[in-house]
C-alpha cells in the first residue's frame, strides 16, 4: 500500500494527497467491445466448435457450444463475416472472458 503522502487522486481538477486502495490501483482500463472478438461470457467447457477457420458466417449463426452450469450454451455470432481465427479447442475448460474466436466483419 502506498504511503498516505505519496498517492494522488484527481477529483474535479483538484489533486488530493491520499492513499490509494488496492482495488483502485488494480482496476482495468476500459476499452470498447470489439464485435469481431467472440469472448466467453461464462466459464465452462468447449463442447463443440461448429465453424471452421475461413468459413463465412451470418449474423445469429451458432459458432460454439459452451457447456456451463450443466447447460449447453450456443454462442452465436453478433455480426456477419468470415472466421479469421479459432483460439480454443474442443474440450478446453475456459474461464469467463476468454477469447474463443475472431471474425473478420463483412
Amino acid at each position, binding site marked *: 500500500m502506498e504511503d498516505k503522502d505519496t498517492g494522488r487522486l484527481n477529483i474535479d481538477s483538484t489533486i*488530493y*494527497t491520499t*492513499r490509494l486502495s488496492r482495488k483502485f490501483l488494480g482496476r482495468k482500463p476500459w476499452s470498447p467491445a470489439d464485435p469481431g472478438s467472440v469472448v466467453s461470457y461464462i466459464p465452462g467447457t468447449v463442447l463443440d466448435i461448429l465453424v471452421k477457420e475461413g468459413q463465412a458466417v451470418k449474423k445469429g449463426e451458432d459458432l460454439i457450444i459452451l457447456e456451463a452450469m450443466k447447460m449447453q450454451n450456443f454462442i452465436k455470432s453478433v455480426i456477419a463475416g468470415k472466421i479469421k481465427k479459432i483460439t480454443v479447442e474442443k474440450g478446453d475448460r475456459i474461464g469467463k472472458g476468454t477469447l474463443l474466436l475472431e471474425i473478420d466483419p463483412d
Partner: protein
Amino acid sequence: MALNRKIEELREKKKQILLGGGEKAIEKQKAMGKRTARERISALVDKDSFMEFDLFIEHDARDFDMDKKSLAGDGVIVGSGTINGSPVAVYAQDFTVAGGSLGMMHSRKITKIMDYALKMRMPLIGINDSGGARIQEGVNSLAGYGEIFFRNTISSGVIPQISVILGPCAGGAVYSPALTDFVFVVDNISKMFITGPEVIKTVLGEEISMEDLGGARVHSELTGNAHFFASDEEECFAQIKKLLTFIPRNNRNGAIAVEAREPDGKFDPEKIVPDDPTLPYDVRDVIRAVVDKSDFFEIMEMYARNMVIGFARLGGVTAGFVANQPQEMAGVLDVDSSDKAARFIRFCDAFNIPIVTFMDLPGYLPGVDQEHAGVIRHGAKVLYSYCEATVPKITVILRKAYGGGYIAMGSRHLRADFVFAWPSAEIAVMGPEGAANIIFRKEIMSSDDPEETRGKKVEEYRKKFANPYVAASRGYIDAVIEPGETRACLLHAIKATAGKTVKMIDKKHGNPPF
C-alpha cells in the same frame, strides 16, 4: 435410593453426549488450531451462565445407514447464557460430530433457539463451523437452512444478530451470516464461499486455496462480508463482548448508558485537520478527540477504508459514527464505501442509536469501473438510509463538503437534527479548481495568460464560496463552531435529541435500492 440411580443414569447419559464426536475428532479439531464448540461457548458467555437446551436431540434419518449412527446433540449445541450480565441466545455447531453437518434435527435446534431469542428479545450469537448440508438427509437439510434464513430475516431489526465464523461455512450456509448484523472472522480459521476450490478446479481448472478464495482476510478487505477480523479465537470473543457493550439487547431497549468520561488529552481537535483541503489526516483521531475515553470501536476496519464507521460514547450514551476518511482515497464516496455506510446507518436506526456524521469529502470517485459497477444505485443507499433514519442525526462538517457528497453525508436536507460546521468547512457544488474552470471558462480561455487568470479565478471562487458562511446564511448549518467546542456541542445535541419523535408515513415498507 431409586432416585439416586436415576440421577446417576442422567449423569452417565450427559457424559456420553458431552464428549461430542469423541476424543479422536476433538484431537483433529485442536490440530487445526480450533477450539471445540463447548470451549467456545464457555469462552464467550459469563462463567457458569450457560443453560443448554436439547442435549438429547437425535436425528431420525434412515437412509444410507444413518439409522445405525448416533450423533451427539446432532452436531450443534444451543442454549442461553449471559454476556456482561446481559442475556444472549447462542448456538455453536460442533465440527467433531459429523463435520457439524446440518440435518433436520440440527436445524430444529437452531431454529428453536432463534425463536426463543426473538420471543425473549435477546441478541442471537451463532457460531458456525460446519461442512454444510448433511447430504444423507437430502431435502430436509435444505428445508433446515430455509427455516434459519426465514428467522434471520424476521428477527432483523428486532434483536441484534451476530455470526461467528470459526471453521468452514460453505454453500447455502453462508446466507445465514450474510443476513445477520455483524460477522466475525478469525485468520486461518474462517472459510466462507458459495462454491469451494474443488468445484472451481473442476469447472474452470483454476486452482485456489480456501484461504485465498474465502478466508478471513478476503472477507474483511475485499468482499465486505465480514465486520470484525481477529488473529485468534480469543481476540474474536473479546471483540464480540466489546460490541455487546455498545448495542442494546433489542429494538425497544436503548443501549445501556455508562458513566460519562472525558476524552484523552492527547487528541487535540484543532491540530488534527490540515487547513489545506487536499492534505490527508486520520479522521479517527477527530472521533477520538471528542468521544468518551477516546475509545472508538471501529467496524469493518479493513474494508472501504475511505469510509469510517463504528461505535463510541458521548456522555455515556452510545452513538454510531460515520465519517469520511481523507487519508484513504481522499475520503470519496464510491460503491463499497456507500454500502458500508448505508447498512451501518440502518443498524443504528433500527436499534435507536443516534448517528453522528463527520463530513470531509471531495465527492464521488470518478471512473468507468465505478459507473459500471452501479455507483448510482449503491450511492443511493446512503441517501435512502439517512433520509429514512428517525434516530437523532447529528452532522459536523469538518472541511470539504462538495456537491452530491455534501447532500448524501447526513446534510440538513436529509433531516439532520443538528448541523455544525468548523470554520474550515467549505460547502460548495465542487472544489474551487473545478468550479472556476467551468464558471470562468471563457475568461480563462481568452486570457493572454490562461494559467494566471485561472489561478486568480480559483482564488476568487475560494474566497466567495469555500467557507461555511454561505450555507450558514441559508440556515443549512445551525452553528459554526470552533473545533475545541465540538464535544460540548455533540453532548448538547445528544441530550437535546433524546426525546426525538418522528412519525413516518404509514406504509408496509419502503423499497431501498438494495
